[in-house]
C-alpha cells in the first residue's frame, strides 16, 4: 500500500519499454506525455525523420490513452458515443473516429479497434473516463482504462513490413490498411498488429502485454537493423504527422472537456470531420446540435492545410486577409523535407477557407541571430494531406 503512494518521488511514469528506450537515448532528451516520460529524440532528429520516410522508425506508443469497452451493448454504446456507425466496424477492423458533447462540440478524436474476440479498444490523446462512464448509463457495457495494461509500438516507414516479415510476422502481409490480427510472439507471447499509424505511410502498430514489451522491442530492433530501423522520438513523429495532415486534441483544437472559454470549442464541421457523422444510425451524443449546425449552415471555422510561400516555418503565426484583417491562426507548421513545401495546419474563419481564400497572408516573426525579421507571406489553402504516397495503401505491402 505504502509503495503505491510514492509517486511524488517519480511524478512521471516510465513505459514498459523504458529500459531500452533510456539505453538508446543518447541525448537524454525527454518530454512528458500523458503522465509518462517519453523520448523527444534519441539522437539527431533529422536522421530519425529520414529513417521514418526512407526506411523505418520505431516509436514507443505506450502512453497513448486506451480504454477497453466490452459487454453485450458495446456496439450500441459506441454508436451512441461516437460519430460513426460502429455496427459497420467488423471484428479485426479499426476506424478513425471522433466524439462530441451534447452541444456537438468535439471532445477528442481517436482510433477504435474491434478486437478479434469482440472487445473494443478506444485510443486517444486525452483522458475521458468520466465521460465514457456517464455515456454508458443505460447500456450493458464495461468501460475500463487499460492504458497501463497495454504496451504499444508504432513501426512506420516504407520498410516497415520488411522488418515485420524478418521478425517473424510475415503473415501480416495480408493486412489491409485499418485491419488488425493477432500473432504469436516467441514461445508463449501474443502480439496484436494493426495496419495503422500517424505518418500517412506504410506502417503498423503492435500491441502486447507489458511483460512482453522488451522482447518485442528486441526482436524488432535486431531483425530491423538490416532495414535501417531506428528508434524515433516525438519530434520526428510530429513532423510526419503534420505532413500527413492529422490533428491532435489540445494542439489543433481545444477539447470541449478542457475549454475554459466558451468560444474555444469546435464542432466536427469546424474540424473537417463532418464526413464521419452518420445522421442515419439513430441517436448519438451531439446529434441534435450537429443537425442544427448543418441545417443552419452556421459553422464558423475551417481547419485547413496551407501552402505558404518561401521556406520560413510559420509556427503560431496569424493569418490575414489582404494583409490586414485577421482571419485565423496556424496550429502547426513545418518546412516539409519530403514534399519540399512550406506547410501548415490552420484554423480559419469561414469563408476565408474557400470563397474568400484568394488573398491570404501569414505574418511570420523569423528569429535570426537574436533579431526578428517580420515577414508577410502569401499562403494558399490546400488539402491537408500533404504527403499521401501510394505505398501507404498497397496490399500486399512493399518491401522498401
Amino acid at each position, binding site marked *: 500500500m*505504502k509503495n503505491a503512494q510514492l*509517486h*511524488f518521488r517519480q*511524478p512521471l*511514469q516510465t513505459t514498459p519499454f523504458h529500459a531500452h528506450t533510456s539505453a538508446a537515448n543518447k541525448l537524454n532528451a525527454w518530454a512528458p506525455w500523458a503522465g509518462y516520460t517519453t523520448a523527444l529524440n534519441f539522437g539527431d532528429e533529422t536522421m530519425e525523420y529520414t529513417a521514418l520516410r526512407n526506411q523505418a522508425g520505431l516509436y514507443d506508443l505506450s502512453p497513448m490513452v486506451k480504454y477497453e469497452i466490452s459487454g453485450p451493448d458495446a456496439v450500441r454504446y459506441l454508436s451512441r458515443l461516437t460519430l460513426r456507425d460502429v455496427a459497420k466496424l467488423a471484428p479485426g477492423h479499426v476506424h478513425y473516429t471522433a466524439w462530441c458533447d451534447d452541444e456537438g462540440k468535439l471532445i477528442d478524436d481517436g482510433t477504435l479497434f474491434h478486437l478479434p474476440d469482440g472487445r473494443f479498444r478506444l485510443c486517444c490523446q486525452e483522458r475521458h*473516463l468520466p465521460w465514457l462512464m456517464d455515456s454508458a448509463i443505460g447500456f450493458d457495457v464495461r468501460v475500463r482504462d487499460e492504458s497501463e495494461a497495454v504496451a504499444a509500438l508504432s513501426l512506420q516507414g516504407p520498410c516497415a513490413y520488411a522488418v515485420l516479415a524478418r521478425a517473424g510476422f510475415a503473415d501480416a502481409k495480408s493486412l489491409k490498411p485499418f485491419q488488425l490480427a493477432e500473432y504469436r510472439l516467441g514461445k508463449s507471447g501474443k502480439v496484436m498488429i494493426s495496419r495503422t499509424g500517424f505518418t500517412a505511410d506504410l506502417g503498423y502498430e503492435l500491441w502486447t502485454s507489458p511483460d512482453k514489451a522488451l522482447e518485442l522491442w528486441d526482436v524488432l530492433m535486431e531483425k530491423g537493423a538490416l532495414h535501417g530501423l531506428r528508434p524515433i522520438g516525438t519530434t520526428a513523429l510530429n513532423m510526419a504527422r503534420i505532413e500527413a495532415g492529422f490533428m491532435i486534441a489540445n494542439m489543433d483544437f481545444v477539447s470541449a472537456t478542457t475549454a*475554459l472559454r466558451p468560444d474555444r470549442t469546435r464542432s466536427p464541421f469546424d474540424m473537417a470531420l463532418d464526413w464521419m457523422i452518420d445522421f442515419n444510425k439513430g441517436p448519438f451524443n451531439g446529434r441534435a446540435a450537429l443537425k442544427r449546425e448543418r441545417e443552419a449552415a452556421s459553422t464558423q471555422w475551417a481547419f485547413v492545410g496551407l501552402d505558404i510561400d518561401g521556406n520560413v516555418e510559420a509556427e503560431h503565426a496569424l493569418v490575414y486577409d489582404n494583409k490586414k484583417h485577421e482571419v485565423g491562426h496556424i496550429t502547426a507548421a513545418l518546412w516539409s523535407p519530403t514534399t519540399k513545401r512550406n506547410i501548415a495546419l490552420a484554423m480559419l474563419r469561414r469563408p476565408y477557407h474557400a470563397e474568400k481564400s484568394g488573398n491570404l497572408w501569414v505574418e511570420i516573426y523569423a528569429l535570426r541571430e537574436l533579431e526578428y525579421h517580420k515577414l508577410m507571406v502569401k499562403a494558399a489553402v490546400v488539402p491537408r494531406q500533404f504527403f499521401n504516397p501510394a505505398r501507404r495503401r498497397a496490399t500486399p505491402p512493399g518491401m522498401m
Partner: protein
Amino acid sequence: MSRYDAIVAGGGHNGLVTACYLARAGLKTLVVEKNDWVGGAAVSRSLHPGFTYSNCSYVSSLLRPEIMRELELPKHGLQILPYEGGAVFMKGGGYLAMYRDHEANRREFARFSPRDAESYDRYSRDVLRHCRFIRPLLLRTPPDPTSFRPRDLSELAFLGRKLFAMPEKDIYAMIRFWTMSISDFLDEYFETPVIKAYLAVSAIIGTALGPMSPGSAYVLLHHYMGDVDGNIGAWGFARGGMGSITQALMASFKAAGGEVRTGSGIEKILVRNGRTTGVALANGDEFTAPLVISNMDVKRTFLKHVEERDLPPAFVKSVKRFKIRGSSGKVNIALDALPRFPALPDDSPCIRGDMHFTDSIERLELAYDDWKAGHFSRDPFLDMMIPTTTDPTMTPPGKHFMSCFVQYAPPKIEGRDWTDADRDAFGQTVLNQIEEYSPGFKKLVLHAEVRTPRELEAEVGLTEGNIFQGELTFDQLLFNRPVPGYAQYRSPIEGLWMCGSSTHPGGGVMGAPGRNAAAEILRSLKKPAAMGEAYAVL
C-alpha cells in the same frame, strides 16, 4: 486638536490599503488603530521567545497583484512564497495526498477512484470558469441597481454583458453554483468520500455553514479566485508571516507621508448635522477630518461608534440583521521539532502543505451540528500548516511554527460567554486530534496560543469573531454587501465611508475592499487616483 483630510478608523490591511491610496493622492491621512500594532487579522506577533506566529490569517492568495504592485509592497519588504502539497489523514492510518504535480496528483486520486482522478480536471475547469466570471468584479464598485446614474447603469450593463456573453447552459450552471451546497456540487463529480472532504473545506472556512448548507458552494469560489503570480487558485505564505503584508503596507503608507497612531481605539465617530467631523479616541484625544473611513466591520462601526439616532432606522435595522456569526478558532503552536506523521513517508512534500484530519463530508457536517447546538466541535475540522517548512524566518532552524485553523467554534457557548476553561478545553480538543495522528506530538509543544471567537473579537474587533467581517453568502454579496443601498462604500452619514471586509467583495486578505473604497472616495473628491485598470482576465 489636529486636522486631517482623512482618518482611517482601524489599521487592518484594508484600512491601510485605503490609507495608502489616499495619501498618494495627496490627502493628509491618519490611521488610528486601537491595538499597539497594526494588521488586524493579518498580523505576525512573537508570543514565545524566538518564534513568530501568523496569529490570525496564515496563507495568502487573494491579495490583489494590482495592489502589491501599485503600492510597491515588494520594495517595502513583502515576499509571497508558493507552497506545495497537502494531505488528509484518514481514520485507520491511510491518507490522501495533494501534489502540485498534475500527474502525481492524478495517480494519487486514482488510488481511490480512476474516475475521480479524471473528474478532478473537469471539476477544476468548471470552478475556474466560475472564477473567470467573478474575478473582474473584484476591483469594481458594485452598481446600485435602483439608481439611474450613468456609472451605475454602465456597471449594470457590464455585469449583464458578462452574463449574457455566456452560453445559456453556463448561465444556468452558474446560478445553480451560486446557490447550492458544496456537498451537492462535489457529488456531481466525485464518488470518494475523502476526496470530497478535502475539496469541501474551502467552502466552509470562515463560514457559519456546513458542507450540506445551500450557498456553501459560492464560498469555495471565494477561496479559489486569488492567485500566486497568475497561478489561479494557488495559495502561498507571506515570508515572515501574514503581518509582513500589513508591515509593508504601513511602510508604503509612511513613505507617502501618512501618519499612524496605535494604542488607543476610536470611541466615537463624531457627527454634526448628518456629517462626520472626525473621531474621539478612548484616551480622550480628538482628531478632525471631513472624511472618516471605517475599517471596522459594519456592525461595530454603526452600532458601537455612531449614535443610532444619527442614522435612518431602516439602515440600523439592516445593519442589525447583517449576518456575522463566528464559526472559527485558531491554535498557534511553537514546536521544539518537526512532528512526525507515521502515515507519511519521511520525504513527503505533504508536510509543507495544508493538512486535515476530516476524511468525510459527514464528519464535517457533524462538526457543524455541534456549532448549531452552541458548542465547539468535539471532532473539529483542522486546517493545519507548518509554514516554517518553507519560511526560514519565523523560528530558529529545526524549530517550527504550526498554525491550526479550527472549525467549528460558536460565538457563544450554549448562549453564554466563553470562559477561560472553555477556551482551554477547545485547545485540548485540537491538540488531542493532532496527537492521534502524530504520537508524541504534545511533547513537542513549547507554547500554544488558543483563540476562540471571544479572543478574535477582543483583539481584532471582529464582531462575533466572524473572520470575514460578515458571512459570504449570496444574500450578502455584491450590491447587497454589507446592506442594500450602501454597497458603494458610503454610509448614510456624509463623509463617513466603509473600507473593511464587510464591504464588497468581502473577507480574506485581499485588499480589494480597501482599494475600491479609495477609488470611490477619490472619485467623489474629483481627485485623480494613482490606480491603474484592474488586470484583465484574458
